């Protein structure tokens, strides 16, 4: 750990080094200072957001972002033994991967949302856009996040949006994944309400959509 760095920068370095010992040390040091601040909001979340921005700027690899996110999750699950403070109750949010078995993006988004205090139901892999929409309608989901890897799967999100409209549901569909990053017009083409270029941008997107103060 480099002395003199602010805790979130120290945490960022430890996350990028995939060094859980250093990460523990940062948080222990932070607790010792006795600031009374929430270590998630003041240390881990800013560190992960900074890592997400660096990835978006092309300065980091997706593997580094993923490993940093996993390390943060592990620290919370294994070490701290404390609950991440949840936001005040919010409308149901769910997430699914459409068609593909590559769940990396979903996992990153779920971790990012969880660290920011959002409760997101993990619906795993969906193979049928219409069935996914019907489930969202049935469970009165306010925001349905759909991740895709293949271009064809990305285009099939249009089927989710159309089915929701036909059902009269006001569920908003948020899309993500490589096809939407590579072709920014695709989000509008499939009728989605929004997209986030990085997992760390998802909490702000949810705040905006659900009008819940961070």
């Amino acid at each position, binding site marked *: 750990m480099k002395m003199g760095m602010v805790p979130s920068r120290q945490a960022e370095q430890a996350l990028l080094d995939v060094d859980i010992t250093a990460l523990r040390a940062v948080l222990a040091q932070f607790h010792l200072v006795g600031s009374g601040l929430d270590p998630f909001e003041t240390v881990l979340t800013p560190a992960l957001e900074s890592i997400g921005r660096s990835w978006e700027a092309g300065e980091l*690899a*997706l*593997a580094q972002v993923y*490993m940093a996110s996993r390390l943060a999750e592990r620290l919370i699950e294994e070490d701290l033994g404390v609950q991440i403070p949840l936001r005040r109750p919010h409308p149901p949010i769910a997430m699914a991967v459409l*068609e593909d*078995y590559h769940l990396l993006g979903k996992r990153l988004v779920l971790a990012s949302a969880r660290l920011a205090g959002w409760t997101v139901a993990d619906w795993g892999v969906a193979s049928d856009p219409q069935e996914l929409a019907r489930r969202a309608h049935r469970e009165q989901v306010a925001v349905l996040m759909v991740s895709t890897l*293949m*271009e*064809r799967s990305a285009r099939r999100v249009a089927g989710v949006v159309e089915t929701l409209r036909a059902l009269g549901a006001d569920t908003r569909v948020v899309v993500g994944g490589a096809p939407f990053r590579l072709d920014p017009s695709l989000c509008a083409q499939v009728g989605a309400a929004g997209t986030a270029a990085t997992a760390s941008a998802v909490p702000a997107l949810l705040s905006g959509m659900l009008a819940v103060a961070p």
Partner: protein
Amino acid sequence: MSVTAGERLGAALACREADRVPFFLPVTLHPAKHLGLTPEAYFREPAAVVEGQLRMLDLLGHDAVTSFLHVSAEAEAFGGESRFVADGPPNAGAPPLAEAAQLERLTVPDPLAVPALARSLAVARELKARLGDRVPVLSGLTGPLSLPVLQLGFERYLDLLMDAPQLVQRLWRINEAFCIAWGNAQLAAGVAALVIFEPLASPALMAPERVRGHGLPALRRVREGIRGTTLLTTASTPVGSALAGFLELGFDGVGVSCADSLADAKARCQGRTALLGGLDGLAMAHWTPAEAEAAVRGALAAAGPGGGFILTEHHGEIPWTVPEATLQAVAEAVRRWGRQPISGAEP
């Protein structure tokens, strides 16, 4: 005497000019549509693939055909499956290597014993028999660093890199041997050049130090083990700072993404290795003929001067949604603007 496609491609691979810039549109899916077949019916019948590739050659007049079928065929070599759909490429099913014990027991599969790969070899043999050296048969394979995405799933791959890197290193070694065997089998069947798809060597996906430490040595061994012409590409993922390392590996050509500067890449490759890329398949889906022409002219101006450039789609597969008319507009633009020598002036 007119220059053949084989001579044109050969000149580019030797970093020389010919009569015009060679181009190849990787139409792996369009022939099925053209023949009125479902992708599954098409890919399961080598004679249909041969017929489809020859029809695309007539339609587009590009400088190669391909015996490459679909990426998920390689997953089948490791126990995976291809899931066919009616309107796109088959997707790989659930990753086949779910347990650590499977990785510990894994041996190098024989590509000749995998039906989907055997079909690709049958296509290569027949295309070579029909076209001889006049039009080269290209194909490809997934590189040793990227195969684990099919074998394990991306998430589990990265989890293992964190928790059991020795298992991943073992898998990479097995994949190297598989890539060499699969590559040499394709060359023996008549393939003239192999494109190695290695998106995981991109700094956008894997940390550069990990690629330098393990990835580049593995790619060098694969290149040395394959007894023929090999080209390396990150399959539309940005190459960025990795290009310098790629150039040290001795591949006959290097592909870059449309997110990379084609002109910068050309300047670094000039006289050293051929450069391939220049066209974005996703963007192609909504190009007008004028936009297709502008894209071709832009790529030719950036990378055409001096030879050593192969104009192609940067990912390695033209999306199903790209109209045939757009592909024809691209082909027409290359014939119109690709005559060499080319000046570097912007169109």
